[in-house]
């Protein structure tokens, strides 16, 4: 059977897998981004020249430590991490989402820290001088100005997760990985190659859908005054 007729016959299944893939990545990214951005907000100094050097030093150490740990996590082979998580979360979606969340942390965290701390010193100083407290400076000034950089981190994390989500089929994770895995296990049989091919192309489509989504989000959320 050629690819087209395979698709036509299995459209429902393929779409279901695609949808699962999309959702599992979406949840993981939402969770990972919330954790990373929240953490970055906590450890970012609210001013250009902090007055208490000891506090600044401690925050810096925590920041660097967190970046190191999340970067290290990214180098753990996905297969190994999935298997390591199995005793905790069992087969299926929970393990998958957890693993994908872990893989998304580094990119979002790194960009959040970079974006939040790259806000112009003069802007921060005048914010403080006008009587904005630390929280207000973070939420009203630093976060919106860092947002384009943070959003880019989320994009990269999404691409990583779309790819890794396919591997999660090995622990019965939902998504297009199921197609690839089935195809592999029946290699040589009828339609086995089509399954692998559709699974792979499906990941591309899912990535493209995310890209379109982020383009819209960017349009809607990046303040007009700093849009390039």
């Amino acid at each position, binding site marked *: 059977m050629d690819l087209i007729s395979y698709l036509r016959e299995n459209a429902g299944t393929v779409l279901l897998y695609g949808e699962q893939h999309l959702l599992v990545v979406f949840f993981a990214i939402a969770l990972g981004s919330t954790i990373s951005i929240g953490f970055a907000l906590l450890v970012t100094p609210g001013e250009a020249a902090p007055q208490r050097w000891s506090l600044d030093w401690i925050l810096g150490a925590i920041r660097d430590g967190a970046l190191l740990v999340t970067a290290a996590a990214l180098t753990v082979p996905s297969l190994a991490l999935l298997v390591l998580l199995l005793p905790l979360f069992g087969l299926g979606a929970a393990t998958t989402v957890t693993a994908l969340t872990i893989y998304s942390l580094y990119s979002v965290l790194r960009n959040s820290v970079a974006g939040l701390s790259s806000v112009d010193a003069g*802007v921060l100083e*005048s914010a403080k001088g006008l009587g904005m407290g630390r929280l207000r400076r973070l939420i009203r000034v630093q976060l919106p100005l860092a947002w384009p950089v943070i959003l880019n981190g989320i994009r990269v994390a999404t691409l990583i997760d779309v790819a890794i989500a396919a591997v999660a089929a090995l622990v019965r994770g939902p998504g297009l990985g199921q197609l690839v895995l089935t195809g592999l296990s029946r290699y040589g049989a009828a339609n086995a190659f089509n399954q692998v091919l559709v699974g792979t192309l499906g990941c591309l489509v899912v990535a493209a859908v995310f890209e379109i989504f982020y383009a819209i989000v960017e349009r809607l959320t990046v303040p007009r005054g700093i849009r390039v």
Partner: protein
Amino acid sequence: MSRATTNPGGSADRPPDQQPMIVLEGVSKTYPGHLTPAVAEVDLAVARGSIVMLVGPSGCGKTTTLKMMNRLIEPTTGRILLDGEDVTKVNADQLRRRIGYVIQQVGLFPHFTVGQNIGVVPRMLGWERRRIRQRIDELLELVGLPPGEFRDRYPRQLSGGQQQRVGVARALAADPPVMLMDEPFGAIDPITRERLHDQFLEIQRTVRKTICFVTHDLQEAIKLGDHIAIFAAGGRIAQYDTPEMILSRPANDFVREFVGSGAAVRRLHLIALSTLALDKIATGSSATAGAHPVIEVDGSGRPVAWIRVPGVDGSPALATVPLSGSVYDAVDAMLDAHSSAVAVVDGDGRAVGALRWEALVGELQMRGRHR
């Protein structure tokens, strides 16, 4: 002089509106890890509604002194009183909302429109939306940016000078009694800076704020300041006085050297043309010989050319200077036109008098003797 340096606290028997607005008493700041103080034992009293310029070479503690007033930096020792109240006794953020703050980098929020930038402090203070809108337009008018055109622009769509004017409007938004300005015009080209200076003084005439203004430019300090505090290395105040006194009576060698050899010329800035007795002018070609300079004017009374200036052979080139200017401007115009006389014109460009070189030198001699 009865200024309050000698009496920083403002004694209780003085009526409150004559108490200084800002008082620094023995204020020092030593940054952590530094052996020498950045600011050492500074006493300063700033009268209500006046402009004090903090001037001195870079690194001598001007910015540090200014930032201690709104607690962006905490002093190591000493007291700072704002309107009689110790600033360390108030919540820092609340304190800062009552003090306008303008810096060289301007620091407008790039993601806010001009209007939103100006509205920041009123919003924090919980003003009604309508009142904030009104205030934004009022302030844009005040700093010479038509609200209709500028309110909804973003900072990146403004020139440096326009940005700085928005910075000033933002600092003025909640009508704070005190303004702190740290080299606000430092990054602006000389021509625009001149215009901003004039506008700044004009605004000050209407708003009457108590202003501390940091600069490293003595010229700027003389032009804008009611009083000048000259900072010396090590964060000490070498002299605190009026521009006039700083230029004519430097208190020590440091000030003398800082003021430099151009003091006499600089002092000309301080003499407004409107305070001089100008030569009367005769107009039109009909005028015959007499003691007055004769000038040819056009239909609306604007000078066209000198016909005759007593004591000068031939008719010198015409130079004009506005009556609102200083003697410095008049001399500058004379030198520029290679002419020993200048016509002084009013706001509509009509000639109101003449200033001759000889008369000017005579007048300055008189003033020198009376000082």
